[in-house]
């Protein structure tokens, strides 16, 4: 199976430059459904699902490969090679912000621009570093995931898949919106919330934009500021939007901020 099939890659739009949107932990490429279309007339849009999410090929999942974010970064590089992307813009949300940083480091020709939405290089506090979570809290999360697979995996699956009250949405809901394999999601949580990519930030050569929400329990503003300080020459925009998903809760503000950054560069 080709890598684009494995990752349910969708290419649309027209333009000489490519814009790659990467979703974070907890959803799939639908995360960009309110944002990506705004760039379709000027860019070649590339959407994809990480392994284990959405329409990806679950059979290609390997616990070893995906036990670190490098495995996900390698996927990004591979799936960008097929449409021969060079000097593109990578827009990564949440954990995908760090995946993009890693991919850009590994394959410098791929991306000359990075847009990091709600990035966090490390979720657990460490000495002076504030990640937003104590080590105990992250372990509480992981234990909870292990013990409560009926609660959430069921909650994610049936709500998304069966929708008897609104049959007109059935097909769309069944095939979209954050489908995740519960077991893979648990592993993805472990990989994500135990990651530490602070040391990778200094080596970023691409032009970078950090989009930070005002109130974000997953990646608090101080973390976004840390990333901004660590990446040389990066820009920082604090959105009015709250929560962790401005691409869903405030798509217009997100689009505007990205467009401003990209046009500024041009």
């Amino acid at each position: 199976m080709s890598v684009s099939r494995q990752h349910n890659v969708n290419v649309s739009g027209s333009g000489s430059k490519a814009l790659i949107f990467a979703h974070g932990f907890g959803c799939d490429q639908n995360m960009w459904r309110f944002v990506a279309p705004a760039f379709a007339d000027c860019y070649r849009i590339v959407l994809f699902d990480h392994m284990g999410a959405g329409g990806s090929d679950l059979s290609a999942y390997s616990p070893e490969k995906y036990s670190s974010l490098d495995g996900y970064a390698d996927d990004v590089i591979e799936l960008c090679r097929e449409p021969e992307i060079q000097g593109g813009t990578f827009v990564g949300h949440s954990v995908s912000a760090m995946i993009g940083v890693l991919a850009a480091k590994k394959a410098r020709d791929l991306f000359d621009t990075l847009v990091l939405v709600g990035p966090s290089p490390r979720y657990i506090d460490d000495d002076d570093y504030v990640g937003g979570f104590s080590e105990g809290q992250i372990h509480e999360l992981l234990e909870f995931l292990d013990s409560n697979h009926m609660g959430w995996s069921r909650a994610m699956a049936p709500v998304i898949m069966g929708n008897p009250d609104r049959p007109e949405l059935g097909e769309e809901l069944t095939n979209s919106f954050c489908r995740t394999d519960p077991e893979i999601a648990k592993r993805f949580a472990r990989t994500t919330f135990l990651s530490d990519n602070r040391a990778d930030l200094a080596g970023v050569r691409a032009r970078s934009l950090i989009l930070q929400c005002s109130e974000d329990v997953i990646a608090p503003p101080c973390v976004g500021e840390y990333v901004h300080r660590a990446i040389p020459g990066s820009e920082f925009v604090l959105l009015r939007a709250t929560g962790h998903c401005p691409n869903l809760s405030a798509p217009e503000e997100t689009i505007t901020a990205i467009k401003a950054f990209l046009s500024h560069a041009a």
Partner: protein
Amino acid sequence: MVWTGYRRDQLVGRRFQDLLNIAGKIYYETHFAPLLRMQGFFNEVALDLVSASGSPLPMLVNAVERRDGDGRVRFTRVTVFNASDRRRYERELLEARRAAEKANAELHELNLTLEARIEEAVQDRMKAEEALRQAQKMEAVGQLTGGIAHDFNNLLAGITGSLELLRTRVAQGRIGELERYIIAAQGASKRAATLTHRLLAFSRRQALHPRPTDINRLVAGMEDLIRRTMGPNVVVEVVAAGGLWTTLVDTNQFENALLNLCINARDAMPNGGKLTIETGNRWLDERAAQDRDLPAGQYASLCVSDTGSGMPPEVIERAFDPFFTTKPIGQGTGLGLSTIYGFVRQSSGQVRIYSELGQGTTMCLYLPRHLGAAEAAEVTEIARRTEAPRAEQGETVLVVDDEPTVRMLVTEVLEELGYTAIEAAAGPAALKVLQSNARIHLLVTDVGLPGGMNGRQLAEAGRAVRPGLKVLFITGYAENAVINHGHLEPGMHMLTKPFAMDTLASRIRGLIRG
């Protein structure tokens, strides 16, 4: 909201997700908030709220977004249900499912090993059946021993008693009175030999001496004896077929069988009746042969019919079983028919019973046709009674038997007759002699021998170095399997123990001369 433990003023101004535990907060932000935004609602999401006291409160959460005409969110309504009980059920359900999956896995494992288990069970069953058969056999041996040992001890008493008296008289110098003790001992010995013969025939290990036989002639020879045995109340009629085919049978055994059938017939007619002995030629086609469990072909038959009480089917079914008898205790051994059956089957024939209650019974023996003329049976009888012939000069016989007494007796008899005897107690020692340059005119060997080489193997090894070596097997019983199921190669002969010394001498003489 009393069950949450929070007061109203503690909740005002706080968002729903602020009350979640840490895992709930993370999942809400990463999973359920996106879901709510994309589909406008979510239902029955299991989340844990942290109560005012810090303890977890399992909840089910429904949420719905309301938007205005421009698509802006007007409000989000979140409904929480106390799900403490439900969560407990769910945990129990999960536990039950885990147990079921475990049981299922075990069942799967069981299925995988089922074939092996069945095979094991079948093996066990077969072992048990084998043990049962052995037990039944031992029971039969027990019954046999009980019935026979008494007779045999009587006969042994007669022999040992005679020998003791013989010794006493010799010591007393009363030599003139020896003859009667010798006759008594010989008589008892012969009866003992007959007894063991019958036992061996029963166990189907008796060596048969089948020879081309005219059954009509045997019947005619027996007719007078049969008439006398039947008594005055039974009319005997013999219907002998003309041109009856020759069969290959052991004549002694055949006579025994005929007599046995007639005695059974008589016992079935306590108030008298008619006994018919009828011979005939039978051509059995495939179907008729199959009915009788025989190969198709030509057979001579002997049928003995009575007008007696007849047998019910359940008796017919068991009639050939050893020790099965309908006669009162002490009047029948139950060995008669089973002995006949053994003999006939060993002669490649068959026995069939036709019987009707109150009408009578017909017992038919089928014996395969032998192409060739019948032998005159009397010849051997005459030969047996002639004087034991003397040996020619330098004739040497190799005698092999592990029983020293037998070896001594045979050797002594041979030397008395003028033969040179060389003795060996086991196969390997005997083979050394055969492989040497010694002149050997005849090998006389026991069949069952110690030392890893039986009599047949010794004979074959002997023939490897001395082609055409004449062999006489002497054996307590014919180990059919050992001696090629009773079929001996040319130049090989058999003599069954016990044998009269003059019989041994004549056989040896005949073999060396032949």
